[in-house]
């Protein structure tokens, strides 16, 4: 029996954690999980125009008794900073999975400044940060981080390294 791709296992981990709302600003690295969320009748998949919408959605979900996750890429973290005051002030869980750009074989220089600042910015805003570098650790890190967020009522981000995701290949 072949093992499922890690992306499928990440979705299964989110389901086991009880996630019912999945907000996202699309990224190629999240494409499989987004596709699975839309195919799942027991998941609200919410496409956002900007990342901070997903933080506010998560707060509303928690008020109504549901768990949620926000999927974004590192360039979106900068859009989120002030909205992070919401889960922190309200002692709500917040869980996000972030695909990294600008750090491994990056072709696009415009991705580098935010990618370089992502972890420091999140920590400065009060978010607990975990990082997955290898396919064989990502599911455990996602599952443990979801528990940390939901059961300890704190904001937690999992960074999926660009080496894990695969650098975007550009052709002319």
């Amino acid at each position, binding site marked *: 029996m072949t093992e499922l791709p890690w992306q499928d296992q990440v979705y299964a981990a989110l389901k086991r954690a009880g996630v019912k709302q999945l907000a996202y600003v699309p990224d190629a690295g999240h494409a499989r999980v987004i596709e699975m969320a839309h195919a799942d009748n027991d998941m609200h998949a919410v496409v956002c125009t900007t990342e901070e919408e997903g933080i*506010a959605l998560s707060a*509303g979900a928690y008020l109504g008794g*549901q768990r949620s996750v926000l999927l974004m890429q590192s360039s979106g973290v900068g859009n989120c900073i002030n909205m992070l005051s919401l889960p922190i002030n309200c002692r709500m869980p917040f869980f996000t999975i972030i695909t990294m750009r600008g750090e491994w074989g990056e072709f696009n220089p415009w991705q580098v400044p935010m990618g370089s600042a992502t972890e420091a910015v999140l920590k400065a805003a009060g978010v607990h940060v975990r990082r997955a570098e290898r396919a064989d650790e990502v599911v455990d890190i996602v599952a443990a981080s979801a528990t940390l967020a939901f059961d300890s009522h704190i904001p937690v981000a999992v960074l999926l390294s660009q080496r894990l995701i695969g650098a975007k290949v550009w052709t002319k």
Partner: protein
Amino acid sequence: MSGGNLDRRAVAAKLVQTADAAPGGPLLVVCGLGSAVYDIGAAGDRPENFYLWGAMGGAAMIGLGLALAQPSRRVLVVTGDGEALMGLGALATVAAMAPANLSIVILDNGQFGETGHQRSHTSLGTDLSVVARGCGWRNVAVVDDMAGVDALAPRLQAEALLAVIRISPAEVPRFLPPRDGAMLTLRLRQAIGVAPD
């Protein structure tokens, strides 16, 4: 499409009365940062109210998350033109999800009242009702008088409605409802009947 003549406190009182009298149970009211918080609080604090003292631009999306999580309850977002403008994309996101149990009321006075009465975009050409329609909202109302506010009541209790209510830019006495986010969160969850975790 800037501010109008309506007394914002009279409008808020009617909205809270509408929320309390809803046939399906009290509406869950999310109040956007700024004067909408003071207005709804002044109409009488209630556990179903969630006041935002920050997170500007987040009110509509909090309403969406709550509405999706609680499909048997009805949610009302009350906010101002400035807060709605900061989260303009949320009007598209909410419309895309089209929850049947969420309405949004924008109290439009055409200015940023909290920060020195600078004119907002609704005084400079933006019509939020047209924006909402463009985002895909099917039920949109613009209200200029109290009869119109009264007529909104049954719609806010039953439809997925976005209403722009044109209120006077006149200042009213400040009223400060609770601002402890953790308390407001716990209180609302208890009012809904969500088990503690």
